[in-house]
């Protein structure tokens, strides 16, 4: 896949890091401010899509990226289910039990396991949307003209 012009590349250099950081911020502050795992994950995926569209990349690199992202996605989903299962071990034995100490409401490190859920769901959403985009590009590159 070919990249775009030099203007788009330079603008992407300036913007994409900011977008990525904003997505991380939305994920991490999910239990304090509006947003959370789903919204932040889609923002992170948007920054990755921006870089891929602007710079392009040859076929082998895209395929490698896709297989790596698939592993990240599966690991994040498994981690969500594992944390939910870990609630069965501690305290009252309930699936999705909030077993860590709650802390003070409004602090960054508070709310027990909810930030962990946010982080892993955010990773999973970001990688799944990026995989869908990458597989569309790979399909276009692979198909005979």
């Amino acid at each position, binding site marked *: 896949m070919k990249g775009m012009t030099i203007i788009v590349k330079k603008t992407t250099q300036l913007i994409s890091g900011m977008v990525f950081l904003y997505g991380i911020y939305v994920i991490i502050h999910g239990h304090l401010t509006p947003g959370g795992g789903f919204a932040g994950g889609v923002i992170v995926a948007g920054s990755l899509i921006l870089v891929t569209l602007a710079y392009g990349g040859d076929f082998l690199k895209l395929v490698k990226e896709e297989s790596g992202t698939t592993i990240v996605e599966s690991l994040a989903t498994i981690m969500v289910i594992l944390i939910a299962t870990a609630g069965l071990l501690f305290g009252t034995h309930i699936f999705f039990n909030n077993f860590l100490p709650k802390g003070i409401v409004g602090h960054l490190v508070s709310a027990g396991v909810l930030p962990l859920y946010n982080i892993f769901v955010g990773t999973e959403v970001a990688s*799944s949307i990026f995989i869908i985009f990458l*597989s569309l590009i790979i399909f276009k590159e692979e198909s005979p003209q």
Partner: protein
Amino acid sequence: MEIALSIITGLMILGALYAIHAKDLLSSVIACGIVGYSLVICFLLLKAPDLAIVQIVVDTITLIIMVAVVLDSSREEQFSKLDTNGYISAVTAMVIIVVLLYFFAVSIQNLDVLGKSTLRMAEHYIEGAAQKTGSANLVTGVVFDFRGYDTMGEAVVLVTAVLGVLTILRLKGKK
């Protein structure tokens, strides 16, 4: 606020109608964008910023992908001659509209004012939720603590969707 909501909903209906009938596929995709972004404004007016953030980002990425697909394939609609007998479909549409309006009129009498109603279950969620879950954002508390099963289901649905996309869009293993 209800007047503003009605105007925005009318705009959404117009955008959807234009998206169906547009000759150019690119303008049809942009008209779909009208529907999505008007929905964002509706969410903001109804004080649901979480939903608004998700909707605006997902809508932007969907528009980017759709525009890329339209620019890459063709901008003209194929198979445009589907329906030749317009009379029967017009009568059917009128009957369906009348039936739907009747049931809307019946059901709207039992509804509360928009945005004012609280269900009995929702009152239990709201009352003391910050102490129960420890999260300052009520939506995250409900989504990941009270309704954990639902969120896990959503995550698994995304994984399944990606599996489906990867299965359909592959050429190597196909014959």
